[in-house]
């Protein structure tokens, strides 16, 4: 029988308001084996922890039950507390009486009753706990960054700066991401390329950083400190080591009618292309969907003009295996498709564009060379209508329920730039709310209104009718209580942003959790914002939620700091709650091995003493504790009940069941 101490936390009023903590402590004191039971205002505070430590010594406790918040919150805190007092940390059990009791119930009597039962279950479990010691596993001193946008680049640069090797995997032919497509950045209006391209070059020239462009992660195995990743280098039909990026092939290729993805299809490029002049790596790529040579075997112009002999039509996808200690996800975002918002006539008129398309139309390196011209007829627009929240803040099946965060600011930027460059244009912005939290953000928006004379209208656009070269916009002006009818030349839609499509399958590979919008979830929304709940996986940039550039960079560096902290360690402490077979009961049937997702189970032939002083050679299962992650699949698969899971043993769970049901 253990000597159990019970500590009931008030959590200020969080628990004490709905649970009679004194009564809980009193009732639990009568449970078998409980030698000490008390309650305290903040058990996790310094004083609370000291009280636990003193009690362990004073009452010679062998087991501790803490009735408090969720074990996901403070289990580690209390384990460390007890460890310092000389108790094995795995002799601590938490009864979750906050998240799963006081916060969800209003009636004090019911909540108290439930808290008692949860406490009993924990006591029943702790009686069967056994001291566990953690093993260690080595850390591979190399990091992988998935996604080469500004988030991925910043994370890689910071990790490399600390002296660790980093690989960037980028699915496009060049790193740089969305920021390469942006013209100016708010609220300073400096040019995006001017601040981004030096970083791209830094990344390319850093000897600690290796860039896998036009590549994807195809499989991830292993665990924190020891990930085994397969990277697929997609065939670009150009030898990266030979190509000098001279661009001659991209001028001579006869296939001219390929929609230019970099300019969002606003103009065309060739079938062999370098996305833009400052691409990193500056290497050509053949678009297999359009290349005549690859499709019909007749052409070969690029190969003929290439003096470096870099063109290789026979190139195949290559797979590279690499080991990493940590993985950073930086997969970024995309604007949503606007197919379902045709009240804005997006599919009916080329003059209705998304904000990102507008960005290209304003960009000096864009299809119009930086002069704002209507896509339909190349004329200067004189009236431009901006519509905000297209697909954001929606409670329907078409849109996203969240605020996309960046649209208010970039729309203010667009509106301001239009008025600055072309003072003869009338600019309207239809908004629901203007959200400008951020340093110098509101000042920026006010400048758009006060100095640049942008017409901000509280209301929405209901219908856009393209007719005779104009866009007839019907909108509401809620403050003026009128319906506006504007003959516009262009309509710009601030489309909601969503996580990149590659994020969902990647999350599955990484076993990292995602929310219902496919944003990666963080380990704690406030206290661990750059880590995934899955150990060794870190989050950088918009894959975790909508973010502007300053925030993305801040988070990227934060993620890098976490990675550096991890890679600095030589060994990681393993989870000691691993599976363990009872060799006497094991009959070597291999059932457990088949269900183990980690290959942690092997079999050995072992000598056992048989009847009449004979020895028997029997095949029994062995678990590698450094590899076992403690899921418990094998324990249920074992037909003889030989396999058990330390920390969550059959007896422990049964004891909890009994305590709850009695």
């Amino acid at each position: 029988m253990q000597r159990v101490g019970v500590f009931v936390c008030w959590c200020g009023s969080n628990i004490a308001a709905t649970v009679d903590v004194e009564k809980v402590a009193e009732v639990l004191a009568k449970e078998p084996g409980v030698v000490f039971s008390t309650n305290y205002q903040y058990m996790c505070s310094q004083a609370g922890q000291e009280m636990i430590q003193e009690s362990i010594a004073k009452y010679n406790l062998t087991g501790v039950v803490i009735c408090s918040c969720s074990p996901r919150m403070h289990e580690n805190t209390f384990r460390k507390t007890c460890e310092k007092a000389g108790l094995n940390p795995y002799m601590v059990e938490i009864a979750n009486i906050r998240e799963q009791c006081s916060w969800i119930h209003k009636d004090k009597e019911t909540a108290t009753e439930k808290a008692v039962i949860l406490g009993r279950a924990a006591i029943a479990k702790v009686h069967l706990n056994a001291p566990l010691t953690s093993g260690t596993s080595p850390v591979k001193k190399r990091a992988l960054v998935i996604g080469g946008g500004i988030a991925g680049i910043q994370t890689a640069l910071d990790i490399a700066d600390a002296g660790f090797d980093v690989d960037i995997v980028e699915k496009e032919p060049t790193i740089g991401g969305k920021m390469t497509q942006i013209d100016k950045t708010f609220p300073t209006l400096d040019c995006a390329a001017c601040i981004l391209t030096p970083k791209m070059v830094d990344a390319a020239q850093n000897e600690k950083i290796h860039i896998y462009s036009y590549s994807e992660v195809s499989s991830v195995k292993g665990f924190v400190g020891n990930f085994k990743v397969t990277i697929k280098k997609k065939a670009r039909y150009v030898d990266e080591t030979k190509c000098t990026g001279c661009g001659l092939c991209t001028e001579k290729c006869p296939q001219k009618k390929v929609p230019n993805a970099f300019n969002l299809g606003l103009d065309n490029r060739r079938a062999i292309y370098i996305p833009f002049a400052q691409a990193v790596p500056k290497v050509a790529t053949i678009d297999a969907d359009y290349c005549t040579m690859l499709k019909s075997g007749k052409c070969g112009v690029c190969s003929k003009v290439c003096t470096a002999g870099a063109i290789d039509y026979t190139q195949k996808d290559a797979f590279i295996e690499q080991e990493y200690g940590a993985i950073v996800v930086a997969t970024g975002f995309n604007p949503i498709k606007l197919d379902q918002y045709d009240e804005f006539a997006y599919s009916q008129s080329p003059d209705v564009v998304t904000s990102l398309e507008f960005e290209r139309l304003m960009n000096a390196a864009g299809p119009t060379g930086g002069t704002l011209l209507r896509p339909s007829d190349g004329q200067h627009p004189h009236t431009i209508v901006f519509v905000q929240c297209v697909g954001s803040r929606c409670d329907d099946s078409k849109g996203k329920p969240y605020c996309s965060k960046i649209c208010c600011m970039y729309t203010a930027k667009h509106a301001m730039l239009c008025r600055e460059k072309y003072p003869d244009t009338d600019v309207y912005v239809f908004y629901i709310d203007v959200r400008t939290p951020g340093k110098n953000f509101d000042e920026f928006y006010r400048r758009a209104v006060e100095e640049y004379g942008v017409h901000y209208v509280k209301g929405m656009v209901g219908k856009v009718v393209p007719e005779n070269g104009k866009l007839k916009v019907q909108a509401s002006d809620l403050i003026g209580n009128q319906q506006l009818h504007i003959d516009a030349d262009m309509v710009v839609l601030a489309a909601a942003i969503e996580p990149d499509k590659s994020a969902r399958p990647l999350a599955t590979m990484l076993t990292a959790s995602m929310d219902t919008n496919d944003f990666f979830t963080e380990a704690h929304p406030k206290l661990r914002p750059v880590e995934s709940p899955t150990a060794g996986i870190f989050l950088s940039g918009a894959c975790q939620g909508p973010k502007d550039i300053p925030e993305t960079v801040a988070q990227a560096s934060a993620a890098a700091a976490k990675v550096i902290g991890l890679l600095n360690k030589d060994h990681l402490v393993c989870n000691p709650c691993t599976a363990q077979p009872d060799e006497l009961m094991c009959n070597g049937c291999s059932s457990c091995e088949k269900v183990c997702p980690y290959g942690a189970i092997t079999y050995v032939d072992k000598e056992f003493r048989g009847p009449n002083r004979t020895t028997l050679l029997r095949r029994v299962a062995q678990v590698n504790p450094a590899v076992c992650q403690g899921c418990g699949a094998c324990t249920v698969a074992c037909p003889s009940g030989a396999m058990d899971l330390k920390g969550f043993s059959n007896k422990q769970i049964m004891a909890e069941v009994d305590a709850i049901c009695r």
Partner: protein
Amino acid sequence: MTYSYFPGCTLKTKGKDLDIWGRASAEALGFTLEELPDWQCCGAVYPMAKDEIATRLSSVRALMAAGEKGQDLVTLCSACHHVIKRVNNDLRTDETIRDKVARYLKLETPYAGETNVRHYLEVLRDKIGFDVLKEKVVNPLTGRKIGAYYGCMLLRPASEMGFDDPENPTILEDFIRAIGAEPVIYARRNECCGGYCTIKDKGFATKQVDAIMENARNCGAEELITACPLCLYNLKENATDGLPVAYFTELLAEALGVKEAAK
């Protein structure tokens, strides 16, 4: 294939031709519309209020009659379609309405929206197929530039009607292509024509219709088709200087070569 058919008030009186052309075309395409024996007017307006039960009953009777025959219920008039489909949806999803209806009609087992409601156009698209229709066309309407006018009731609310994309529908355009003509897409094809107000305020209806006509004409349409008898009336009678407007079954019958014979 045989369907139960709910013609509705207008097609039995002022709009007989539409009904006749619709049925003749159906035969030419190999399906039969079997008129429900004792159908009652659907009421022309979907009763949005949850406590309006009596106004839902005629639709329920029609739905149950079709259900008993094991047939889908086909409508031609878009108002009937709108009302019956949404009432059916109510009975499928709203337990209170279902129970109240069952008590009104003294049903032993409540009707829970089991019957499928299809618009004639949906039959063409989903059951016959526009490619099959194209093959059966004998007089393709080559060279005619036709704008489709959808109106409100076929499309909205899309979550209940499930007819087509409510903001960028294509079913009538596909239909126009199938009968050999050229569809003209214009943005106001799903904006309200103001038909319900024609009794109350003709001037308002005219304003709405003129905007639609102007938009269609400016986009290159030379004539319009519609699937709603009220829209048809409104577009024809209340336009200041309108394009010719036809019910879609008229052009269908013409393309299939059964227009004259049916009369």
